[in-house]
């Protein structure tokens, strides 16, 4: 009985959360977070609360998801509603000065701001030009120009475009579709792999190609003489 109800709850939750959106946990605002907990709780009750039928829990689940979805649609259509419902970014440090009034209004303590800054690798407030608290509670920091890291552009160093790598072989299998999209063929791939001492495709775990044309090849046998162990406790775990 619990197994069937668990299956129903699992499938429903999976479908509803997929419909609700692809926001990651870190991008959630407080309401999304609570919505997630509530619908998860309903699915859990639906599974194990045998003193009531599964149907009312399912209706509760579907209603909350529907309202959440509706809220998403409304906030994406009306900017004002979205600002009211989700809040808007707030500047907490401006020109290096902490905005105490804003902090008080947002119920943030200075220690929390400093913690958020440290999370962003900023340990000295004097380096900060602007700091903005986003609606999801994270901080965005703009350092003063003199503290910003130098870029190749500043140094006038020519760079080639890195772009996104494409997988050509995964788990010993050639991904033909990606090869075709890049205008390459198996013959070319095997020729390139031969340069890495590979005769058979089954020896390779992963091959990727970046837009600059460099190939990353990882074989199943890594031939590493000495393995670095970062663990500080003898297992097994």
């Amino acid at each position: 009985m619990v197994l069937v109800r668990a299956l129903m709850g699992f499938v429903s939750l999976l479908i509803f959360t997929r419909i609700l959106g692809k926001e990651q946990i870190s991008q959630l605002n407080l309401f999304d977070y609570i919505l997630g907990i509530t619908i998860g709780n309903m699915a859990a009750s639906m599974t194990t609360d045998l003193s009531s039928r599964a149907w009312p829990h399912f209706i509760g689940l579907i209603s909350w998801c529907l309202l959440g979805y509706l809220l998403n649609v409304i906030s994406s259509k009306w900017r004002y509603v979205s600002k009211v419902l989700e809040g808007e970014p707030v500047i907490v440090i401006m020109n290096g000065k902490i905005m105490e009034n804003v902090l008080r209004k947002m119920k943030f303590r200075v220690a929390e701001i400093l913690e958020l800054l440290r999370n962003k690798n900023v340990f000295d407030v004097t380096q900060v030009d602007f700091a903005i608290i986003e609606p999801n509670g994270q901080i965005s920091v703009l350092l003063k120009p003199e503290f910003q890291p130098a870029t190749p552009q500043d140094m006038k160093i020519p760079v080639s475009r890195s772009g996104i790598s494409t997988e050509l072989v995964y788990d010993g299998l050639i991904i033909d579709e990606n090869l075709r999209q890049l205008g390459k063929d198996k013959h070319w791939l095997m020729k390139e792999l031969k340069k890495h001492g590979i005769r058979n495709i089954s020896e390779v775990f992963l091959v990727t190609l970046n837009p600059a044309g460099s190939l990353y090849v990882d074989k199943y046998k890594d031939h590493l003489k000495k393995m670095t162990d970062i663990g500080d406790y003898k297992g097994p775990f």
Partner: protein
Amino acid sequence: MRKFLLIAVPILALVLCIMVMLSGNILKQPFGTEDNISQSIETIVQDIKHEDWEAADQNADHLNRAWDKVVRRIQFSAERNTINDLSINIARVRGAIQAKDKAIGLAELSEANEHWENIGN
């Protein structure tokens, strides 16, 4: 085809879940003569009223067997508490018949009937 499946499979899964959850009302209906709970209850009520204890005992066994069959069908759409309550009612009815206690027998059957009406709704 893949896009169609991407939409059709979740919809089908949800429809299946809803059907299982709402199946109680349909599945509690008798599929034959061996699983007619309300009729069995009514028959035992008449037996007890006429103090025909032997027939009541046989019909109580019949009700128990019918209930065992039906409970397997409705377990996914009914409350466990109601299922347990009805099982206890049937056990008490059998006790009342053995003790030839008309009052308890009729009271338990009336409660069993109430549970039966509510189950799956």
